[in-house]
């Protein structure tokens, strides 16, 4: 690759760190609010996986599409969603992205091409392929990126969508975040493959696996796949191998993995790794990094405060909210 590395470019490095810290701090805030009994429901945290959405969305335009998953806060933030409106949604507020109707698993932000998180594993896969079909039929060069987990590889929806996308050479990238577990099922055990991207060959599309905790590596693989899609050369599978530090959801007791395994992966923190690369490249100083961290902290603190102060979601027009209004 001749292009300058992200870590060597002060602006891009700063932006990457901001996004990764924004995701991390958002989810830590969510965890804390939940722990204090101030947040309802459940949530699925992606702490430890921040490099994937951050790097992938850097390769996309604002009008490109993404579909996301139940573990979708990172995708939303990386594609440009407003953390305050996200937080308001999780805090069951009228000002939340879904007016309190969706919660953590259903945040969408059409202004940034985000077609929504999804509570159904692989539910977004055909939807992303459909968005790519739409883009191609409308004659635009928009691309759709379908974020999904390793668990989605076991779903029929994934298979059906990839088959159709391959047949029609649609501009879609299937971006598998292999965080090692579909809830408790190990992806190594489930799929019997040392390299999950081998899957792609059976569908007649290119596939590649990358270190998902290496921002640059994810960026380069995604850029190539997105470029291929935009050029009309069809879909690809990119598998970004990473690790979920937290449990699947709040009910998880981590009975299926060891403390040591979690610790090993915590040592591979994608943010720390990228900060180290930036410092080694001499692009930013330790003070700069400290400052970025502080800025994000303060931004998130404000978002939480403002979301808290927003009016609660109201039940008065629930029945009228089920259907879109028919034009007169």
């Amino acid at each position: 690759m001749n292009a300058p590395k992200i870590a060597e470019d002060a602006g891009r490095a700063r932006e990457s760190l901001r996004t990764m810290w924004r995701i991390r701090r958002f989810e830590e805030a969510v965890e804390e609010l939940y722990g204090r009994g101030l947040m309802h429901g459940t949530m699925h945290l992606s702490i430890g996986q921040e490099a994937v959405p951050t790097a992938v969305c850097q390769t996309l335009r604002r009008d490109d599409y993404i579909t996301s998953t139940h573990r979708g806060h990172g995708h939303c933030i990386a594609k440009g969603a407003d953390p305050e409106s996200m937080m308001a949604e999780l805090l069951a507020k009228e000002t939340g992205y879904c007016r309190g109707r969706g919660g953590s698993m259903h945040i969408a932000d059409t202004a940034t091409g985000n077609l929504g998180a999804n509570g159904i594993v692989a539910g977004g896969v055909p939807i992303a392929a459909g968005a790519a079909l739409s883009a191609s039929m409308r004659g635009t060069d928009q691309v759709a990126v379908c974020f999904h987990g390793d668990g989605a590889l076991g779903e029929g929806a994934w298979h059906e969508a990839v088959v159709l996308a391959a047949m029609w050479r649609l501009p879609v990238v299937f971006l598998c975040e292999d965080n090692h577990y579909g809830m408790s099922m190990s992806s190594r055990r489930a799929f019997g493959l040392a390299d999950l991207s081998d899957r792609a060959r059976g569908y007649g599309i290119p596939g590649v696996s990358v270190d998902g905790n290496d921002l640059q590596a994810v960026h380069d693989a995604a850029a190539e796949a997105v470029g291929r899609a935009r050029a009309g050369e069809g879909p690809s599978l990119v598998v970004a191998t990473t690790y979920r530090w937290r449990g699947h959801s709040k009910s998880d007791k981590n009975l299926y993995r060891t403390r040591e395994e979690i610790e090993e992966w915590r040592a591979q923190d994608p943010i720390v790794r990228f900060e180290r690369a930036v410092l080694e490249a001499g692009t930013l100083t330790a003070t700069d990094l400290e400052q970025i961290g502080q800025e994000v902290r303060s931004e998130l603190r404000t978002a939480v405060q403002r979301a808290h102060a927003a009016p609660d979601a109201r039940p008065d027009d629930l029945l009228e909210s089920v259907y879109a209004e028919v034009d007169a």
Partner: protein
Amino acid sequence: MSEMTYAEAVRSALAIAMEQDERVFLMGEDVGTYGGAFGVTGDLIHRMGAQRIRDTTISELGIVGMGVGAAMTGMRPVVEIQFSDFSAQAMDQIANQAAKIHFMLGGAVSVPLVIRAPGGSGTGAAAQHSQSLEAWFTHVPGLKVVMPATADDAKGLLLAAIDDPNPVVVLEHKLLYRTSGPVREGAERTPLGVAAVPRRGTDLTIVATGVQVSRSLEAAEQLAQEGIEATVVDPRTLKPLDEETIAAEAIATGRVLLVQEAVRTLGFMSEVAALLSEGEAFVHLKAPIRRLTGLDVPIPYAPQLERAVVPQVEDIVAAAQTLVREW
């Protein structure tokens, strides 16, 4: 008006919608060169091109899901499920995605998707190719559901469904595809949510859906010969339902016979019975509300068995006679 078959009427609606709106396209199994399993799409691929009449793999979940994605991003897809029974394969995308996205995402997005699916028995295709599944779809908030019973409504309801910003399930009946009727010229819509009253009488009100509408009209002719005059109401749209017309026609005669091909338990007519029971109509009824439905069994293969499990004209006549004579 011009005379055409129900299948031709569906095709005509598709062609008109595609001519009027470049966002409209059709996707499904064998809808292209083959012309559709029931010949509904016919020569459309030659008129509209393979970009807009898209042959898919055998992949109901993929087809509907891609329709959802295309609908969310500016297109107006019409997807065909070859037999409505196969919608079971696609149910996540129908019930969890298409139906809920508008509400669940806070109204930010809508899903203007039409899902066409032929249902019903009478073709000897047995239990996995013959069901009447309207209650499944009607039970999911966020879906609209229509069941055209005439060629004119097959065209008019489909055009209205394509206009609608919501997911609409259009349940066509296989036995009706080859039946003919007068069809309005041009792009006349049949509005969703408005029932039809193809016949008015004084003695009882028959509410029927799908193929049971024509069976009820035939039964009404026979009943008239013995002096029983029946009103026949065809809801046409099951969701949203024209409750007012049904209630008004029930009140007008005081006797109600509800006829559906689908199985009895928790069928669509159970809902109609409940609505009439809890509404103003109740105090005007002279007789208990009577349901005439398919038996609670899978559709069997043998013709005599298949016929025995769904209401036929003679069953409607007999049920109407009992209702009028005993009450």
